[in-house]
C-alpha cells in the first residue's frame, strides 16, 4: 500500500551549504508524525521541498504513490498536500470567510468560474463558515485578516490548510509566537484533526510533540538522525545529548 507521503534521497544545497542531506521519509495515511530538531537543522527547508516552493538537487517525492518531484506548488496542493507557514502567510486584505472560501472553491474546481458571483455559491460559503466556526472564528468571519489578533490568525492559518481537504497536512510550528494563554486552542485543534489526514508536525514545544505524535523523526544538520516511537526517541542517548538535553524546559 502506498504511503501518503514518501521521499527518497532528497537533497538540497545552497551553494556550499548542504541544507538537506539524503532524506528518506515515509508517512502513512492517517499518521501523526512529528519532525523535531535544533534551530537551523533544515526543517522548514524540508517542508519547502515537500511542497514545491524549493526544487531539490536530487531525490524524489511521492505523494500517494505518484511522483510529484517536478510538480509546481499549486499542483501539489490540488493533489492533496497542504501546509501552514511558520510565519503567517495570509491575505491581509481578505476576510477569513473569503480566505477559506477560496480554498474550498479551488478544491471544488470552481476557481475558473468568472460569471456567477461567489456570494451565490451558498454551499461553498456554508462549508467555509462551518469550518471557521469549528476553529472558533465564527465572530471574525467578515473582519479583514490584517485586523485580527495574532492567535486568531494562527488558527486561520491552519483552517485554510484544512479547507483544501488535504490527505497530507504539513504543520510548520503552528504554536509559534502564540501567547501562553491561547496555546491550548491551537493544541486542541491539532489534536482534533481528522483521522484520515496524515499530519507531519514541526514543533519546538515538546508538550505538543509528545502528546500528539505517534512517530518522531529527528533532523540534525539536514539529515535524519533518528526515527521511531516517542518513547524510544526520548530515551535515545544520542538525541538527548544533541537536542533534548539542551531544550530542558520542553
Amino acid at each position, binding site marked *: 500500500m502506498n504511503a501518503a507521503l514518501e521521499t527518497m534521497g532528497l537533497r538540497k544545497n545552497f551553494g556550499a551549504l548542504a541544507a538537506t542531506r539524503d532524506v528518506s521519509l515515509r508517512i502513512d495515511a492517517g499518521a501523526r508524525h512529528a519532525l523535531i530538531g535544533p534551530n537551523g537543522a533544515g526543517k522548514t527547508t524540508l517542508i519547502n521541498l515537500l511542497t514545491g516552493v524549493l526544487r531539490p538537487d536530487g531525490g524524489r517525492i511521492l505523494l500517494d504513490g505518484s511522483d510529484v518531484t517536478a510538480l509546481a506548488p499549486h499542483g501539489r496542493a490540488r493533489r492533496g498536500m497542504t501546509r501552514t507557514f511558520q510565519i503567517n502567510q495570509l491575505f491581509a486584505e481578505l476576510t477569513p470567510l473569503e480566505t477559506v472560501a477560496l480554498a474550498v472553491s*479551488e478544491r471544488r474546481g470552481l476557481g475558473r*468560474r468568472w460569471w456567477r458571483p461567489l456570494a451565490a455559491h451558498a454551499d*461553498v460559503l456554508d462549508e467555509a463558515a462551518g469550518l471557521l466556526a469549528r476553529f472558533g472564528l465564527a465572530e471574525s468571519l467578515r*473582519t*479583514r485578516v490584517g485586523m485580527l489578533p495574532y492567535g486568531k490568525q494562527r488558527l486561520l492559518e491552519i483552517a485554510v*490548510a484544512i479547507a483544501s481537504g488535504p490527505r497530507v497536512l504539513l504543520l510548520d510550528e503552528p504554536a509559534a509566537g502564540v501567547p501562553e494563554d491561547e496555546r491550548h486552542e491551537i493544541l486542541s485543534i491539532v489534536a482534533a484533526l481528522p483521522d484520515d489526514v496524515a499530519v507531519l508536525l514541526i514543533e519546538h514545544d515538546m508538550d505538543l510533540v509528545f502528546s500528539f505524535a505517534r512517530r518522531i523523526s529527528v533532523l540534525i544538520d539536514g539529515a535524519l538522525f533518528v526515527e521511531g516511537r516517542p518513547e524510544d526517541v526520548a530515551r535515545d542517548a544520542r538525541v538527548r545529548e544533541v537536542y533534548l538535553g539542551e531544550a530542558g524546559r520542553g
Partner: protein
Amino acid sequence: MVANRWEWAFWLVAIAVPLLFPSKLLLINEIAILALFALSLDLLLGYAGIVSLGHAAFFGVGAYAAGLLAKHGMTEPVSGLVLASVTAAIVGFLTSFLVLRGSDLTRLMVTMGVALMLLEVANRFDTITGGADGLQGVTMGPILGLFRFDLFGRTACAYSLTTLLLLFLIARRIVRSPFGLSLRAVKGNRLRATAVGVPADARLVAIYTIAAAYAGAAGALLAQTTQFVSLDVLDFHRSADVLLVLVLGGSGYLYGGLIGAAIFKLMQDGLAAVTPQYWQFWIGLVLVLVVLVGRERLSAAAARLWARLARRRTGEQPS
C-alpha cells in the same frame, strides 16, 4: 446581482449627464473612453497586482485595428469594435508571459518596452498606419446599421457610454466571482495562493488577456468616434496618464477608473485651454503631491468609503 443604491445613483448620473449637458458631448465621450481604459488597467493593477507602464500598447492595437478595419471596408462599428478588442486580446495573451516573472521593476520595464516596440512598429510601417500623419480615411457606417454618427456627437456619446456600461457589468461579474477572488489572493500573497491550489500564472495570463481586450475596446472607441488614429495612441504619455487616472480615483474597487477619468478630463479641459505646457506641469505636480501624501492611503480610503456605503444597505461588517 444585488447592486447597492450608490451604484444605481452613479449610473443614473452617468446617463443623465449627456442629457443635461448637450453641448459637452465630445468631452463626455472622451471621459467614457478614458474610463474604459482606466477600468482595464484597474483589473490589472487593482485586482491582480500587475504594474504596467505600457498599457497603451493594447489601447493602440485596438485603435489601429478598428481604424484599419473601417478604412478597408468593415464600417459597421460594433463588429469592428469586437474584432479590434479580440486583436488586442491576442496581443495581450502573447505578451502576458512577460509579466509573470520578475519584480515590479522588471514588469515596469518590460511593459514599457513592449509599448515602445509597438510604437516603433507603427512608425516604421507608416504606409499601413499612416505614420506620424495618422491614419486617414476612417469612415464609420451606422451602428448596427441603425444609428448614424452625427456631427454633434450624440450617437458617439451614447455608443461609448453603452459600451462602457456593458463592459463594466461584465467586469463586475468577474471581480465578484471565484476567479476574481483568486486574483485578489494572488495579488495579496502569491505564495499562500499557490499553497491553496491557485494556478497563479494561468489566472494572471487570463486577466492580462481580458484587460488587454478592454483596453483595445477603448482604443477602438476612440478610433471610431473620432474617425482618426495617430501614433499618440501608443505614446508613453497615454500609459502614464491612465496610471494617474487610477491614482486619482483609487484602484481596487472598479469605480476608481471611472471617477478618476472624469476628474482628469475635467481638469484637462479646464487647464489645457490656458497653455499645453501648463497642463503637463499640473499633471506632474498632482502626481508628486499624491505620492507624497500616500497613494495607498488614498486608494484604501476610497475603497473603504465605498465598502461602507455598500455595507449600509446590507448591514454587513466591512470586508
